[in-house]
C-alpha cells in the first residue's frame, strides 16, 4: 500500500511538472465520461420505456432524446479534444521529460559500473517502462475517480428502486478480486519465460540480417548454430505456452463466465425471482434495475482490474524513482571491500540532486562549494598517489593497476607504452576520471579529481580512443562536440588534418541514417575527423588511446606528426598510448607499464641506456625491420 501511495505521489508530481492542468483535465474527462455512461445506460432507456408504458406524449420522448443528443455532442467534443489532441501531446512530453532524467542519471554513473550486465538490464527496463507506466497510472487515477462517481449515481438509483438489489451487485467483488490477482501472477511468470526465449530469437534474426555477420555466414556453416539458437527460442516459447497456458485459460474462462455471462444473466434471474415472490415492476424499472446491476458489476470488475494495473504500474514507477535517487559508486571502488584509503567514491555531480526545475546541460551544478565554479587552472599538476584499480569480477589478487605513483604537469608530451594488458588503458581511464580508483588517490592541483564537476572535466580533457565514434550529425557538431569552437576554429582544424578539400561545407551531415545525402567518409578520413576534435577545441590535456591503429604506416606517421606539430607550441599537455615505438623518440617522457605497474619513466635516450623493458621492446621492433637505415 505504501508503494502505491509513493508511486501516486511521483505520478502527481511528474504530471504537474509536465503540465499544470494535466490532473484537472484527466479528472474532468473521466467524470463527464462516467456521467454519460450511467445516464445513457441506466436512466435513458428507463425514461423512454417508462414514458412509453405510461402513455406519455411523443413530445416528451422527443425531449428526452434531444437532451441525450445534446449531452452526446458535448461529451463527444471534449472526448475528441482529450483523446486526439491533449493525450498524445501529453504522452510525448512525459516521454521526453522522464527519459531525459533517466539518461542524465545513467550518464552520471561511473563508466565501469554502467557497463555491467545487471546495470544495463536495469537501465533498459527503466527506459522502456517508466513513461508508459506513468501514463497508465495517470489514466487509471482518472478512471477510478470516474468510477467512484458512477458507483454513487448507480447506487442512488438502485437504493431508490429496489434496495435488495444492492447486495446482489456485490457479487463480482468476490470473484474478481481473487481471480484477478491469480491471473496477474500467472501472466507475470509466463512473461519472464517468454522474454528470455524472445531474446534468443531476436539474436538469431540479427545475425542473419546484419552486415557484420555477412562474410562469416557465407564462408562457414555457423548459420547452422544460429538456426539452432532460433529453434531453441521457438521451442521454449511453445513449451511455456503449453504448460502455463492451461492454467491461464482456466482463469480466463471463469472470468468470462462470471464476468460477462453472469453479470447479465443473474440480474435477470433475480428480478424474475422477485416477481415470483410477488413484486411488481414497471417494465422500465425492470430494465433499469437489470441494466444498473449489470453496469455496476462491470464497473466493479473494471475498478478491480484498474487496481491491479495500478499495483503493477506502481512497481515500475517506484523503480524509476529509486533509479533516479540512488547514489552509485564506481564498480572498481566498492565491491564489498573497503577501498584501501577509504577515500574513493564517485559522488554524483551536484546537478542531479533536484528532480524538478529547468534542466539545461552545461549549467553549472548546484550544491558544490563555490570555489569549484571558477575555471580550471592554467598551470596544473595531476598526481597519482599509490593508485590501484581492480576490475569488478576479475579474480582476487589480480589488479589491472597496482600501486602507481606519478606526476603529470602541464605542457608535457608523454608516451605510454607497454604490452597488451599492461594497464595502459586503465591508467588513462583513471586519469580522465572515467572510472574511480579502488585504492590510493588521484589529485588535480591537490584536490581530488572526483570533487571536480563533470562538465568542467569535459572541458579539461580531450580524448580520442581506439573505439572513437563519428556521430550522424553535422561535421561542425562532430568536431566541436558541444564545445565552444567557432566555425573558423573548425575550418582551421580540418585544414590541419587534411580534410578541408573533402569537406567544403561544415554543416553537412555525416552518414546516411538521417539524410540520404549525408557524407560518407572512409576509415582514414574518419580518423582524421576524430583528431580534428582535439585540435579545434582548446583542451588543456589531450589524450590519445591508439586512435591510428587502423591506418597504414604512412598515414599513421603523418597523423602522429600532425598532432605533435599542432600541439607543440600551445603549451597543451599530450598523452598518447601506442604500440608503435617510432613516435616515442619525439616526446619528452615515456611511461612504461608492465603487469599493472609503472616500471620505467624517462625519455628515449635515458630508457635505452637503462636497458630495461623499453629498450627490449624497441630493439625487438627494430629487429623486424630489415634493410632500412634508421
Amino acid at each position, binding site marked *: 500500500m505504501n508503494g502505491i501511495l509513493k508511486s501516486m505521489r511521483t505520478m502527481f508530481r511528474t504530471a504537474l511538472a509536465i503540465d499544470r492542468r494535466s490532473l484537472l483535465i484527466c479528472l474532468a474527462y473521466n467524470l463527464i465520461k462516467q456521467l454519460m455512461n450511467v445516464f445513457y445506460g441506466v436512466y435513458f432507456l428507463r425514461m*423512454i*420505456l417508462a414514458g412509453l408504458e405510461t402513455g406519455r406524449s411523443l413530445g416528451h420522448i422527443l425531449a428526452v*432524446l434531444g437532451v441525450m443528443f445534446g449531452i452526446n455532442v458535448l461529451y463527444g467534443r471534449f472526448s475528441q479534444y482529450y483523446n486526439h489532441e491533449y493525450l498524445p501531446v501529453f504522452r510525448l512530453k512525459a516521454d521526453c521529460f522522464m527519459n531525459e532524467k533517466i539518461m542524465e542519471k545513467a550518464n552520471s554513473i561511473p563508466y565501469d559500473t554502467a557497463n555491467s550486465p545487471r546495470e544495463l538490464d536495469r537501465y533498459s527496463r527503466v527506459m522502456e517502462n517508466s513513461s508508459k507506466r506513468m501514463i497508465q497510472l495517470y489514466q487509471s487515477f482518472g478512471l477510478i475517480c470516474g468510477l467512484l462517481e458512477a458507483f454513487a449515481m448507480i447506487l442512488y438509483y438502485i437504493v431508490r428502486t429496489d434496495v435488495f438489489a444492492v447486495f446482489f451487485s456485490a457479487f463480482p467483488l468476490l470473484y474478481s478480486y481473487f481471480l484477478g490477482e491469480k491471473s496477474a501472477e500467472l501472466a507475470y511468470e509466463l512473461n519472464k519465460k517468454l522474454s528470455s526465449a524472445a531474446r534468443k530469437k531476436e*539474436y538469431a534474426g540479427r545475425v542473419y540480417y546484419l552486415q557484420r555477420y555477412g562474410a562469416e555466414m557465407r564462408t562457414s556453416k555457423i548459420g547452422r548454430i544460429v538456426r539452432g539458437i532460433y529453434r531453441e527460442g521457438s521451442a521454449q516459447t511453445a513449451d511455456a505456452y503449453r504448460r502455463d497456458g*492451461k492454467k491461464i485459460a482456466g482463469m480466463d474462462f471463469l472470468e468470462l463466465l462470471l464476468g460477462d455471462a453472469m453479470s447479465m444473466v443473474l440480474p435477470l434471474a433475480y428480478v424474475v425471482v422477485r416477481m415470483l415472490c410477488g413484486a411488481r415492476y414497471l417494465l422500465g424499472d425492470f430494465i433499469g434495475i437489470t441494466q444498473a446491476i449489470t453496469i455496476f458489476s462491470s464497473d466493479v470488475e473494471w475498478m478491480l482490474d484498474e487496481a491491479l494495473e495500478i499495483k503493477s504500474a506502481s512497481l515500475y514507477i517506484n523503480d524509476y524513482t529509486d533509479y533516479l535517487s540512488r547514489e552509485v559508486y564506481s564498480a572498481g571502488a566498492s565491491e564489498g571491500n573497503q577501498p584501501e584509503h577509504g577515500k574513493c567514491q564517485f559522488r554524483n555531480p551536484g546537478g542531479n540532486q533536484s528532480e524538478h526545475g529547468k534542466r539545461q546541460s552545461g549549467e553549472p551544478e548546484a550544491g558544490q562549494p563555490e570555489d569549484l565554479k571558477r575555471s580550471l587552472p592554467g598551470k596544473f599538476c595531476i598526481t597519482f598517489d599509490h593508485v590501484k584499480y581492480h576490475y569488478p569480477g576479475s579474480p582476487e589478487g589480480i589488479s589491472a593497476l597496482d600501486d602507481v605513483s606519478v606526476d603529470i604537469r602541464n605542457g608535457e608530451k608523454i608516451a605510454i607504452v607497454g604490452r597488451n594488458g599492461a594497464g595502459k588503458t586503465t591508467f588513462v581511464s583513471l586519469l580522465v576520471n572515467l572510472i574511480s580508483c579502488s585504492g590510493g588517490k588521484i589529485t588535480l592541483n591537490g584536490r581530488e579529481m572526483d570533487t571536480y564537476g563533470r562538465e568542467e572535466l569535459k572541458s579539461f580533457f580531450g580524448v580520442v580512443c581506439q573505439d572513437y565514434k563519428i556521430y550522424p550529425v553535422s561535421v561542425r557538431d562532430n568536431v566541436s562536440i*558541444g564545445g565552444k569552437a567557432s566555425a573558423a576554429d573548425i575550418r582551421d582544424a580540418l585544414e590541419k588534418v587534411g580534410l578541408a578539400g573533402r569537406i567544403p561545407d561544415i554543416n553537412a551531415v555525416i552518414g546516411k541514417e538521417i539524410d540520404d545525402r549525408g557524407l560518407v567518409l572512409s576509415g582514414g578520413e574518419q580518423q582524421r575527423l576524430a583528431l580534428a576534435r582535439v585540435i579545434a577545441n582548446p583542451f588543456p590535456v589531450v589524450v590519445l588511446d591508439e586512435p591510428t591503429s587502423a591506418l597504414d*604506416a604512412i598515414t599513421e606517421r603523418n597523423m602522429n606528426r600532425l598532432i605533435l606539430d599542432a600541439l607543440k607550441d600551445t603549451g597543451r599537455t599530450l598523452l598518447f598510448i601506442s604500440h608503435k615505438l617510432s613516435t616515442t623518440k619525439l616526446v619528452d617522457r615515456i611511461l612504461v607499464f608492465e603487469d599493472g605497474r609503472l616500471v620505467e619513466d624517462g625519455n628515449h635516450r635515458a630508457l635505452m641506456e637503462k636497458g630495461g623493458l623499453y629498450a627490449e621492446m624497441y630493439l625487438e621492433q627494430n629487429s623486424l625491420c630489415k634493410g632500412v637505415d634508421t
Partner: protein
Amino acid sequence: MRKAEIPIQRIIKNNFQMAGAVFRADAGYAGFTLLVRMLSGIGSTFLYVYLLGAVIYCVENGKEPGTILIFLLCSTAFLAVVFALQAYYRHVFAPVRRERIVSGLQQELFDRLQAADMANYDSAMLYTKVTLANEEVAVRPLEITDNLFRGLEGLTAVCAIFAGILPANWFVMGICVVSFAAGIFLSGIRSGQEVQYDEQMKRKDKKLSLLRRLLYLPEYGKDNRLSHVHKVFLDDYRNTVMEKEQIAAEGGRRIGNLSFFQKIFCSAFCIDFLIPLYLSMAVLLWGKLPISAFVVAVNAGDQIQRRLDVFLEVIAAFLKNGRLAERIRDLDNIQCDIEAVGSVCPVSGMRKQGAECAACPEVVRSVSGMRKQGAECVTRPGFVRSVPRMRILELHNVSFVYPDGTPGLSGIDLTIRKGSKVAVVGRNGSGKTTLIKLLLRFYDADSGSILQNGTDIRNFAVSSYRAQFGIAFQDFNIYAASVRDNVCMGEAPEEGRLIQALERAGLHDGSKGTFVNPDAQLTRELEEGGILLSGGQLQRLALARVFYRDSDIVIMDEPTAAMDVFFEKEFYRTVFEQLKDRTVIFVSHRLSSVTACDTIVYMEHGKILEEGTHEELMGLQGGYYRLFRAQFE
C-alpha cells in the same frame, strides 16, 4: 520511404496471399480460428441483443417464471461452452500454433537472406529493405489472418442481428445501413489524413530513435562522459520532440474533428436518436411494436454500431497490412546471382534463366507464397560439380567496380601457387580487401577472370569453392554459443581435432595451465554467466578457427592490428610454423611481420604496382619501400 502509392489491387492481393501462406502452413489453425470467431460472434450477439428481449417477451406474454429460469439456465450453459472454447483458443491453442507458423515463416526468410549476395549489404536502400522485411515477417502474416477473421466474426454477428430484427424493422435496418455507409465514407477521408500523420510521425521517430541510441547506448557511454557531445544530442532530441508535438497537436486536431463528426452523425444521431424515435413512434402512434421488440431493436442498433466501429478498424488494418506486407514481397527481387548457385541447388547447380532469383521450383515456398510464372531451370554450361584441390590460383586482367560506383580493382594479374605465402600490402583504400572479396567470390569481377587450376571459379558451386578457404579477418565475430561452436563454426565437432586446434592456437596449454572449457558459453548476450575473453584470447580463438578448419588456403586480413609487438611476433611465428605447407594470403599494413613471405604484392589505387620478395621490393625504392620506412620514422 515508399514514395509511390501501392495500388488497391496489390493491397488486396498481398492480404490474400499472406493469408494463403498461413493457411498452407497450418490449415488446422485457420479452421479452428474461424470456428471460434464465428461462435464468438453468435454468442455475443445472443448475450447482448436477444437475451434481455427474450426475457421481456416472456414476461410480457405471461410465461411462467420457472420457464424463464430454465431458459436462463440453458443460455448460461450455451455461453459457458462458447467461453470455454474462447479461453482455450486464446491461451493454449493459438499461441502454440502461431509460434510454429511464425517460426516457419521466419526460417524461410533466413533461407532467403542466406541466399542473398553480399552486394546487397552495400546499398543502403537494399539493406533497409532487408531490415524492414525482417521486422514484418514475424508479425504481418498473422496480423493479416487475424484481421480477416475479425472481419468475418463481425459479419457473422451482424448477420445474426439482421436475421433477428429484419422481418419487423425495415426502417431500423435502413438507418443502420445509412450509418454504416456514412461511416465508411468518413473513415476513408480520415484514413488519408491518418496515413499522412503517421508518416510525418515516423520520420521524426526515426530521428528520435537514432538520438536515443546516441544518448544511452553503452557504446556511446564513453563519449557521453568524456565530452560535451551529450549536449549536442540532447538539444537535438528536445527539438525533435517539440517538432513531433507540433505534428501531434495539428494532425490530432484534424483527425479528431473528423472522428467527432463521424461519431455524432453515425452514433449519436442515427443510432441513438433516429432509431429510438422511430421505434417510439411505432409504439405510441402506430401501436404495432411490443416493448420487448423495442428493447431488442434498440440493443441491436447499439451492437451494430459497435460492430461498425470494429469493421472500420478491420478495413483500416486491411489497408495498412497490405501496404506493409509489400516489404516482405520486396525480398523476392533481392539479388542472389552468386549465392543462388550452390545455396539453392547445390546438387544440380541449376540457375534461373535470366539470372532472376524469385521462386525456384526446388525451393519450397518463398515467404510471400509467390511463384514465378513459367519458371525454367537451366544447367549452366561448363558447370563443374566437384572442386579440385587447389594447385594454382590465377587472376587474369581482373577489374571491378562496386555497385555504388566506388572503384575497386583495375587490371589485376596475379598468380598464387600452392604452398606459397603471399602478402598483399598497400595503404588504406588501395584495393587489398577488394581483392580478397573477389577471391572469396563475394562479388564477381566485371571483366577478366579468376581461375583455379585453369577453371573459371564461376563454374563451381560457390559453397564448395569457399570451403577451401580458412578465414581470419580483423573484424571477426564471437557468437553467443559455446567455445566449441565458436571454433568449429557449424561443422560437426570432433573433440580431438578441437583440442588440437585450441592447443595450436595457444588457448589450451597444459604446461602453462591455461585451459578453456569447450562447453563454456561465450558473450553475455543470452546468458548472464557467459564468459568474456580478453582481446588476446579472442585473437587466439580466431586462429583456432583456422586451425580447426584445416583448409588448403588461409586468408588473413589484418589479424594483428590491435596487438603489441611481442604478441604480433609470436602470432606470426605460430602461423608460419603451423601452416607451413598451406597456401596463406596475408593482407596487412603492418609490414614488419610479412617480410618473411615468398611474394609480396604492393597495391595502390586498385592496381598492383610492385611484386616480389621483400629484398627485391626494397631495392626498387618505390611505394613499398616508402611504406616500410614510414613505420620506423
